[in-house]
């Protein structure tokens, strides 16, 4: 009985901790998954499913014939085509002031972006970083490809 109580307390404590740590780095949510898509986080790898949270520092990888769509908490829409590597290098968004920063790294593949509230607030708040360029989004819709 005592053991059960201790166990349930620690489960509650662990889930509270999990909730708070998710809230701190929470960047958005996976909405669309086609084919095989993984989220790399803290050295591990998860299968991406619709509804899964996306956190700052996550890396998303899409396989051949695969794609993924993400909605960030500032309403930015990010979607990546096949054989893509997308890193959420930096994400911060204050839902009251709309201040913050989004740095999305596209290492390879294709990315389609519809910018959200961050880009309306400040011209340098939303950037896409590729091996050759730094792109600054000024409230807009655009596509990026990184190819060898």
């Amino acid at each position, binding site marked *: 009985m005592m053991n059960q109580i201790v166990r349930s307390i620690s489960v509650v404590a662990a889930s509270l901790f999990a909730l708070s740590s998710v809230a701190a780095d929470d960047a958005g*949510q*996976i*909405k*669309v998954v*086609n084919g095989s898509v993984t989220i790399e986080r803290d050295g591990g790898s998860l299968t991406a499913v*619709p*509804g899964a949270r996306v956190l700052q520092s996550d890396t998303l990888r899409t396989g051949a014939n695969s*794609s*993924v*769509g*993400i*909605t960030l*908490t500032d*309403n930015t*829409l990010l*979607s*990546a*085509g*096949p054989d*893509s590597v997308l890193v959420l290098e930096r994400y911060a968004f204050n839902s009251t002031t709309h201040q913050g920063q989004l740095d999305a790294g596209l290492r*390879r593949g*294709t*990315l*389609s972006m*519809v*910018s959200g509230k961050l*880009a309306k607030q400040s*011209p340098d708040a939303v950037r*896409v970083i*590729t*091996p*050759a*360029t*730094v*792109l*600054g*989004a*000024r*409230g*807009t*819709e*655009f*596509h*990026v*490809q*990184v*190819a*060898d």
Partner: protein
Amino acid sequence: MNNSVRAGILVLIVAALAACTAPPPAPSTPKTLVVLVPQSGGSVGAVSVKTKQGEALIDRPYASATAAGGAPVIGNSSPSQVQQVFGAAINARPQPPVSYTLNFLEGRDEYTPESRAVFETILSELGKRPTADIAVIGHTDRVGALEYNDRLSLQRTDRVRADLIKRGVPERSISVAGRGEREPLVATADEVPEPRNRRVEINIR
């Protein structure tokens, strides 16, 4: 120091500077292509393109820029090229977020008759979005004290949350906040009744 030593030092400095400013050998940098497209509303924004060798701005529909280690090169793309290169990424784009407003009777957490119909529209929209994140934000007009209106705005969000849950919306997908009289839709003097400010915004992502 004699002149020939001076000249020698100068040559070394110039050589060192030249080494610093020479473009790095970057044949292996993968090529970046960026294409600006009109937004669904028809407006076109702009994208700044920065590389180590230069900077450019694209601000016309289907303007493109390419770069692979050198300065960006401006060009033109087309809807058919966009579809060919980016079709899969575009097809994976999530539905754009939508917002609704529910209005309330004065001093109460009861919907206006019109807003009852809006509530049904919200439910049908949620039916199309299985992974919806729902932010419910309550507001009041400026009749009454600040603290009273903070409580009233939360009563209104709680009402909306309870009604959503009653109709099968998962509780964990709903977040609520009360802003009281701080963010009026229509600016008024204090203590002025304003129906448009008695509202709950529902942002669905």
